[in-house]
């Protein structure tokens, strides 16, 4: 692969293939969301535990009241973002083929958004009906 046979400049050959001052953005977002999730996880567990033994009406009342609902929405939002970032790393590490990798990355992004929005929709519906 000699440079003389290529019409591309070296810059053009590597453009958009690596870090251009965005190399740490993924790692930063992973840590930002994990930092948010640490207290939110314990709030989430507390909400789940206080659901134990409740019937339909009282479970709805708890999940739809402002404080648990807001904490749940924050947990779901930070969680869906965090899990999308984490699964992206897993896919990049283990899926070798370019096409399979791209398809998996797209599926991951869309699945994370879809599952997050569905859960937020449920909490909002519990809050406003």
């Amino acid at each position, binding site marked *: 692969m000699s440079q003389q046979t290529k019409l591309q400049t070296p810059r053009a050959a590597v453009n958009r293939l690596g870090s251009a001052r965005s190399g740490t953005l993924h790692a930063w977002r992973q840590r930002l969301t994990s930092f948010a999730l640490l207290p939110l996880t314990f709030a989430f*567990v507390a909400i789940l535990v206080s659901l134990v033994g409740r019937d339909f009406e009282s479970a709805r009342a708890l999940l739809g009241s402002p404080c648990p609902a807001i904490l749940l929405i924050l947990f779901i939002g930070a*969680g869906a973002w965090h*899990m999308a970032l984490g699964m992206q790393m897993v896919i990049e590490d283990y899926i070798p083929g370019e096409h399979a990798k791209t398809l998996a990355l797209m599926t991951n992004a869309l699945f994370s958004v879809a*599952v997050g929005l569905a859960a937020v929709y449920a909490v909002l519906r*519990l809050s406003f009906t």
Partner: protein
Amino acid sequence: MAEADPSQIPLEQRRPLSPHVQIYQWSPTMAVSIAHRLTGIALYVGTLGLAAYLLAAAGNARSFQTASALLGSFIGQLILFGYTFALMLHAMGGIRHIIWDAGHGFDPEARDKLAWGSLVGAGALTVLIWIAVFILR
């Protein structure tokens, strides 16, 4: 971008490969690192269950009863227990990573303590949560 076929390159000119994972001797840090990734994947799948449960609660009395019955069954309880432990282990792994990101806990003794500590902490928290569940039941 066309990549060169590695089998066409002479052996001594190929890029070095790391040995297969089975070559390494198990260490506590390696075990919790693998567990962190595995619990992350498990929690990823578990989010689907959380969304399904919330949608069932947002639905009608029947969908809520179905979800409650599923979660209350033996398999449901087993999955919930596993989810709790995975969540706690992943959270403790997060704390371990925050400590490492801050530049602490890298000497051999400290990093093994952090590895074992996250496992023990996750186990203790899981037991505490399930004691609370059985008291409220």
